[in-house]
């Protein structure tokens, strides 16, 4: 069976379409935000996902405490909904919009709810061949037709998979937000080991 004329003429276009799709898959937003060096941990946007940006230097005592926690070997799950929120107020040295914030130096007030509990948990498609063909051509055309049928079936599956999945890496996003939120709590809670982590 000879190659259908429409397909033959469309091949360059198909290649161009594939190239365009590859380019689209790489589209992302590039952030121009530059975190000020104020000692706060932040979640920042990096190309296709968030990343945790922690202050560069930790006091040795705080680093030791975190290191011990990370060596615990157990994954700890905390309640998803905050059972209690401590409103944190920065110290008097903070100048909003450009000043130098000092985590750990702030005061806390107004406890809402009760402290949250913690619980610990352990942590083929194949094408047919042969058979008669009306065109009287070779197997190449038949193979092209089979390939097109496969593409016709596979493309919607691929499209729906893209449509229903998250574009960002979910595990990395969750881990980055946890790191930042936990670090800021540690720095603000006034714990002797980590309270002075702000530069």
């Amino acid at each position, binding site marked *: 069976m000879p190659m259908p004329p429409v397909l033959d003429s469309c091949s360059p276009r198909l290649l161009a379409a594939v190239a365009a*799709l590859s380019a689209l898959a790489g589209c*992302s937003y590039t952030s121009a935000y530059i975190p000020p060096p104020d000692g706060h941990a932040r979640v920042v*946007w990096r190309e296709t996902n968030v990343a945790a940006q922690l202050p560069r230097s930790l006091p040795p005592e705080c680093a030791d405490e975190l290191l011990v926690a990370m*060596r615990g070997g157990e994954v*700890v799950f905390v309640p998803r909904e905050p059972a209690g929120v401590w409103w944190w107020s920065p110290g008097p040295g903070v100048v909003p919009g450009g000043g130098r914030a000092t985590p750990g130096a702030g005061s806390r007030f107004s406890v809402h709810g009760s402290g949250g509990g913690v619980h610990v948990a352990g942590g083929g498609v194949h094408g047919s061949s042969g058979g008669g063909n009306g065109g009287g051509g070779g197997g190449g055309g038949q193979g092209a037709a089979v390939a097109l049928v496969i593409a016709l*079936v596979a493309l919607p599956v691929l499209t729906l998979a893209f449509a229903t999945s998250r574009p960002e890496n979910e595990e990395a996003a*969750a881990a980055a*937000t946890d790191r930042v939120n936990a670090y800021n709590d540690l720095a603000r809670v006034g714990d002797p080991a980590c309270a002075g982590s702000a530069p």
Partner: protein
Amino acid sequence: MSRVPVWTAALALAGATLGCNGQSLYPPRVVARHELVLRYDNRFELWGEGRPVATAYRFEGLTDYVGCVPAARAHAQDAEADGRAVGPLMVSGGVLAGVGLGGLGGLAFLNKNNAAMGAVFGVGIGVELTALVLVLVGRGNELSASGHAVDAMNYYNDAVGRSGQGCRR
């Protein structure tokens, strides 16, 4: 304050290091009154004053919340604009992907009319590629919306959120 939050935070850091989950495990406990914090529950969520303010991918309400900070407002508006486009792009892409399956009708011409079969296949493939492009553009918009929302949060927190002031409403 007791040491419980300290160890909760420290252990959450460990969990984040070891973690393999699409959800935030650690709810922030010590926040400024109007500070925005980011959480993740299979989508990005911006929380302020103990409640979700805006969620991916539409981020509706973010502009209102951060509107008093010009840089944050601009990014929030971009996030909402990008987010609004995601739904229509995804839905139209999904519908077209189904429509493109009609190209399989070309099999009716098998061994009868190769030209017609090729034409029907070609149209089907074209429709399906269009669908794929729409969905990929939608994903790009989704990423862009999230990036703008994160930037909006950071600019807002730097200006008025972390100081506890917030936008006076």
